[in-house]
């Protein structure tokens, strides 16, 4: 494929990457840079969860735990055992993958939402362990003094350098997700969501595919946790309660299920909206999130990225009901 054809095919991705990577050149204010930095790590988690929910039709209610594995894995290994941060990130990601496989294999064989239940329980157990295993995690005191990421003399503790690194990785994950959705695997995953039996009879190994995507989402979350912790330099269990798992699900749902770009818009929206709401009264933040979850599910199942289909939907709504094709939910 020629360069022009490639550029045309991936115009959206290339444009978005250009904007994301050039942003620090125009933003001098570290406050905005820090919001963008958190957006990058949120995007990493959201991409994985988006694949799981949108492509495999499964929900994880304990994704905070996978972020915690990455974050605490990096924090503990670098501060206590002086492991190289990059190696620590890799080991933590492998651990997350292993745990995801153990959780996924038995539950994803079953029809229904057993993964949701299992991840909910798993998330709580991880949270309890973070608090109780004081010898390892320092309990509720949290771990401070976590070093920045470096390569040789290149220090990614600086806001701009961190921005490029974190967004570079996030964009890489975005590209991977887009490719996955386009690939044969992606098509078989969507088949799972729509018609499991049909997919099965066509020879798609449904439960294996689901486990695969769950493991990928756990790895994305773990890597995000590692990046987060090398940026914020301090970590405590509070950040990884079930509430955070719910916030993650909200991010993906608001952005839009079934479309990788939903994760992008969801992440951006969920990090900038609270900054905006702050000006009024933050007590309402959760009320707004909750109502938006309901409203989006009912009226806008495609989330923010689904907004572009709204005109068509409206047109259909005003046609006589018996002329309607079946709702494509």
């Amino acid at each position, binding site marked *: 494929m020629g360069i022009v054809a490639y550029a045309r095919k991936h115009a959206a991705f290339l444009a978005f990457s250009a904007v994301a990577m050039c942003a620090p050149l125009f933003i001098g204010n570290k406050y905005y840079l820090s919001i963008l930095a958190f957006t990058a790590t949120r995007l990493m988690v959201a991409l994985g969860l988006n694949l799981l929910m949108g492509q495999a*039709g499964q929900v994880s209610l304990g994704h905070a735990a996978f972020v915690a594995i990455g974050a605490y894995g990096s924090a503990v290994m670098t501060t206590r055992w002086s492991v190289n941060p990059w190696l620590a990130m890799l080991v933590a990601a492998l651990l997350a993958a292993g745990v995801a496989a153990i959780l996924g294999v038995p539950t994803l064989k079953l029809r229904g939402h057993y993964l949701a239940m*299992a991840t909910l329980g798993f998330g709580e157990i991880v949270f309890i362990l973070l608090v109780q295993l004081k010898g390892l995690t320092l309990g509720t005191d949290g771990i401070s003094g976590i070093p920045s990421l470096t390569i040789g003399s290149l220090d990614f503790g600086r806001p701009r350098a961190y921005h490029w690194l974190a967004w570079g990785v996030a964009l890489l994950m975005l590209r991977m997700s887009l490719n996955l959705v386009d690939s044969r695997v992606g098509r078989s995953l969507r088949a799972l969501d729509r018609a499991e039996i049909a997919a099965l009879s066509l020879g798609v190994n449904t439960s294996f595919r689901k486990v695969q995507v769950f493991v990928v989402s756990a790895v994305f979350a773990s890597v995000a946790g590692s990046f987060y912790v090398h940026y914020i330099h301090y970590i405590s269990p509070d950040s990884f309660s079930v509430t955070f798992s*719910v916030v993650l699900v*909200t991010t993906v749902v608001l952005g839009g299920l079934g479309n990788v770009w939903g994760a992008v818009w969801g992440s951006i929206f969920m990090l900038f909206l609270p900054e905006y709401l702050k000006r009024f009264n933050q*007590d309402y933040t959760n009320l707004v999130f*909750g109502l938006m979850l309901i409203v989006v599910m009912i009226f806008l*199942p495609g989330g923010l990225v689904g907004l572009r289909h709204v005109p068509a939907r409206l047109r259909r709504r005003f046609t006589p009901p018996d002329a309607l094709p079946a709702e494509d*939910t």
Partner: protein
Amino acid sequence: MSFDQFLQYISSGITSGSIYALTALGFTLIYNSTDIINFAQGEFVMLGGLVAISMHEWGAPLPLAFLVAVALVGIVGVIFEQLAIRPLLSAGVLAQIIVTIGASLAIRTVAMLIWGRESLPLPPFSGDSPIVILGASILPQTLWVLGLTLVIVVALQLFYRRTLTGKAVRACSVNPTAARLMGISYSRVVLLSFGLSAAISAAGGVMITPVSFMSYSAGALIGLKGFAACILGGLGNPVGAVAGGLILGILEALTVGFLPFSGSSGYKDGVAFLILLVILFARPQGLFGRRTVEKV
């Protein structure tokens, strides 16, 4: 450990377990008619307690406060169903689960705005001098909760088996399409389930408040435990839900008592969720489950 102590742990377990059981019943009612796991269930418990507290503050006697709380939260359940669940009845379980998560966030926040952030007390229904049975002390309030649980389970069984509406609900849970073909109004069954489920959870909330106080954030943990109890007893089985709740409460109390090291209570909550995982892996239909679990 002496026998007295053992009995005391059992009694502690029953106190916590009875509220898990009532919450689990709420989950069961909704799951049975819709296959939805209602993540806002704990919020109904919380609302029940807080409404009763306000009623009592305004001078209503406890029985009246109880009834008003149950009725009001029942109505909240119905409204919730009408607004959020009804439009999604055919939209797939994932969408429905997410809507209940959204509702739980919204209800919790509204409760915080109304009642503030701090815990609020409610006096016990019949005094707080403990009753000592075989060396284990138990609060009269716990007996109230247990009694209520029993009454509700029996009433539900009668309702499901003896009344036409109850049979309709069961028919819908077995096969909604066939039930509809038989002229049963599925949507009415769902509406009824949400109303009843919210009312039962609210009753539990009122009952437990004199023992443990109530605050806007208390519903989350109770909901999670009730959910674990449901899985333990087998999703969709009312008797299993109650048994699951009591077993879970007692196991938690015994974790504190039996683990030989000091500080073992830190792992008490872990037990609930560990059981949940083990059950999901080893026996997804639960201890008392009858519903078949389909393998893909």
